[in-house]
C-alpha cells in the first residue's frame, strides 16, 4: 500500500518543498559568507561575484569574536559538565530510592520547565545584584553568573530523561553489584552509568546546545568582558555598515560545534528526547 504511485508522488512533493524550506537559508548563509562586502550591500545574488574567504578573516577583527568564543566555550562546557553530574545524582535518587518528597521534587522540577525565562530574569537579576552588594560575589557581568543560570536550564530535562533511562536498567544489576561488594555509589558508577551512556551523551549535548544558544539571559547578564556569541554576533552592525558577509561567516563558524556534535550523537539524542513518547 505504502509503495503506491500516490504515496511516491506525495513523498516527492513533501521532500522537495521541505527540503527547499530548510536548504535555502543554509545556502544563503554559506554563500553569503563567501561574498565580498559589495555583494551583500547590493541586490541579492544567488552566487558571489567572486568567491573570497575575507569575511572569515575579517570577522575576528570587526568584533572581538575570539573573546566571545572563549566566553561561550567556558560557560557552555562548565555548565554542561556540572549539569550532567548533578542530574546523574538526582536522577539516580529518583529512579532507585523511594523517599518522602520524591513526587514533590519531580513535579516541581518539571513544572519549572513550563515557565518562560523572562519570568525569572528580572528577579534573578536583582538577586544577583543583591548578592554582590551583601557578600561581594560578582555574578552580573561575570561568567560565573551565566554558568549557574545555564546549568539549571537544562537540569530539569536532564534529570527527567536520565531517570527514565535509569528506570530501564534492571534492578537485578544493582543487586549483583551490591553482592559483589559495591556501595550504592559504586553501583551507580560501575553498573547504572555505563548502561545509561547514550542517555548521558544525549543530556550532555542538550545542555551544551542550550547554553551555547541562549540569548535572553546573555543579553542582560553580560557586559563587554563576559559577552557570549549569542549577543556578540549582533555587533557587526555599525552606524555606517552592516557586515552581512561577516555575520554569516560568524554564524556559520559558531554553528559548527553544535551541529557536528548534534549530528554525531544524533541517534542518542533522538532516542533520548523521544524516550517515553514511544513506550
Amino acid at each position, binding site marked *: 500500500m505504502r509503495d503506491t504511485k500516490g504515496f511516491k508522488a506525495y513523498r516527492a512533493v513533501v521532500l522537495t518543498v521541505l527540503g527547499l524550506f530548510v536548504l535555502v537559508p543554509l545556502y544563503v548563509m554559506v554563500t553569503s559568507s563567501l561574498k565580498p562586502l559589495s555583494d*551583500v550591500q547590493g541586490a*541579492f545574488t544567488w552566487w558571489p561575484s567572486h568567491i573570497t574567504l575575507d569575511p572569515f578573516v575579517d570577522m575576528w577583527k570587526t568584533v572581538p569574536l575570539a573573546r566571545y568564543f572563549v566566553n561561550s566555550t567556558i560557560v557552555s562546557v562548565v555548565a554542561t559538565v556540572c549539569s550532567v553530574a548533578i542530574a546523574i545524582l538526582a536522577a539516580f535518587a529518583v529512579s532507585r530510592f*523511594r523517599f518522602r518528597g520524591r513526587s514533590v521534587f*519531580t513535579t516541581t522540577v518539571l513544572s519549572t520547565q513550563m515557565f518562560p525565562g523572562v*519570568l525569572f530574569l528580572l528577579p534573578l537579576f*536583582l*538577586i544577583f545584584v543583591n548578592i554582590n552588594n551583601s557578600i561581594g560575589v560578582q555574578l552580573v557581568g561575570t561568567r560565573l553568573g551565566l554558568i549557574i543560570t545555564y546549568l539549571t536550564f537544562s537540569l530539569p530535562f536532564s534529570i527527567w530523561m536520565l531517570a527514565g533511562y535509569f528506570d530501564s536498567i534492571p534492578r537485578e544489576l544493582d543487586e549483583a553489584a551490591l553482592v559483589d561488594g559495591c556501595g550504592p555509589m559504586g553501583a551507580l558508577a560501575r553498573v547504572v552509568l555505563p548502561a545509561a551512556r547514550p542517555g548521558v551523551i544525549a543530556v550532555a549535548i*542538550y545542555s551544551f546546545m542550550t547554553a551555547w544558544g541562549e540569548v535572553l539571559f546573555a543579553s542582560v547578564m553580560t557586559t563587554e568582558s563576559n559577552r557570549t556569541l549569542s549577543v556578540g554576533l549582533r555587533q557587526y552592525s555599525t552606524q555606517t555598515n552592516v557586515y552581512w558577509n561577516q555575520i554569516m561567516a560568524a554564524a556559520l563558524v559558531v554553528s559548527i560545534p553544535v551541529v557536528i556534535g548534534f549530528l554525531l550523537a544524533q541517534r542518542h539524542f533522538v532516542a533520548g528526547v523521544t524516550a517515553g*513518547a514511544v513506550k
Partner: protein
Amino acid sequence: MAVVTDEAPAATATKPSRRGLDRRPGLSRKLPYLLLAPAVVLELLIHIVPMLVGIWMSFVKLTKFFIANWSAAPWAGFNNYRVAVDFHNAVGEGLLKSFGVTVAFSLITLAISWILGMAAAVALQPPFKGRSAVRTLFLVPYALPAYAGILTWNFMLQRDTGAVNHILVENLGLTSDRPFWLIGGNALASLITVAVWKLWPFAFLTLMAGLQSIPRDVYEAAAVDGAGSIRQWRNITLPALRPVNLVLVLVLFLWTFSDFNTPYVLFGNAQPPAGDLITFHIYNASFLTWNFGSGAAMSVLLLIFLMIVTGAYLIVTGRRSRRA
C-alpha cells in the same frame, strides 16, 4: 525543553520497589536527600526563589531609583496589576495588543509546525534510499543555535538586499513592489516563518519516533481490508499517535508562547507592533523603562495564564482519553 511523554517517568515507571539499593537500612534513609541536594539548591536559587521574589516585586513600586537597594522599594499593592490590565491607558493597551499578537503567533506557528512535521514523518516512514540523509538535513535548523538561524533569516528578509524579496520579485515575479518584512504589518508573517523553520524539525522528530512504535502489520491488515493511505492515516496513525500528540501540542504551545529569541534577534530593539510578542514586550517594559514592578506584574499575569491553559488542557485531554 522537551517533556515528550504523556507522563513523567516518576508517574509511569513502576514505583521503585523496596529492592536492591533501597532495601539497605540506615544509609539509604539519608542518601537520596544527599543525592538531590545540589539539584534542589540550584533549583531554589535560579527558579523557585526568583519566582517568589518576582511575585513580591509585582506588589512594589520598583523603579530605577530602587534598583541598588530594592528591598526598600515602597509597597504598591495591586497598583502594578491595575495599570497592566487597564486597557484604556498606554501600558494596559500595549499589553493587550501584545497578548493578541502572541496568541495568533503561537497558534499559527504551532499548527504549521505540526502539519509540516506530520507530513515529513509520514513521508519518511517507509524506508527508501537516502532516508537517513534527508532526516539529518531536516534536523539541522533545530540543531543550529537559534540566533545563527534567525540572523540568517534577518538577512534574507531585508527589503533591498534580501533573498526573500529577490525570490518573490525577480525569480517568481509574484509582486512588483518589494514588501517590507521586518517593519509594518508583515512582521507577524516573518516571525511565524522563522519560528516554524526552527521548530518544525522538533515536531518531525517526535512524530517520527511515535510512528516507529506502530506495528507494521496493523497497516498490512488494513490494506488487506481495502483501506487506502488516507484512511490508514486517519484510522490507525492518528489514534496511535494520540499520546505523543497530546504532549507535543502542549510543549509547542508553551514554547511558542514564551518565545523570546525570535523577536529579539529578528527585530533588534525596534520591534514592530505587529510582531510584539509578549515576552519581548515584558522585557522592553522592564529594561527600557526600568520599571521592574510593572514588568513583574505582567510576568505574573503571563504565568497565571499559562498555568490556566496548561491545567485546562490536561483536564480536557485527560478526560477524553479516559472516556475513549
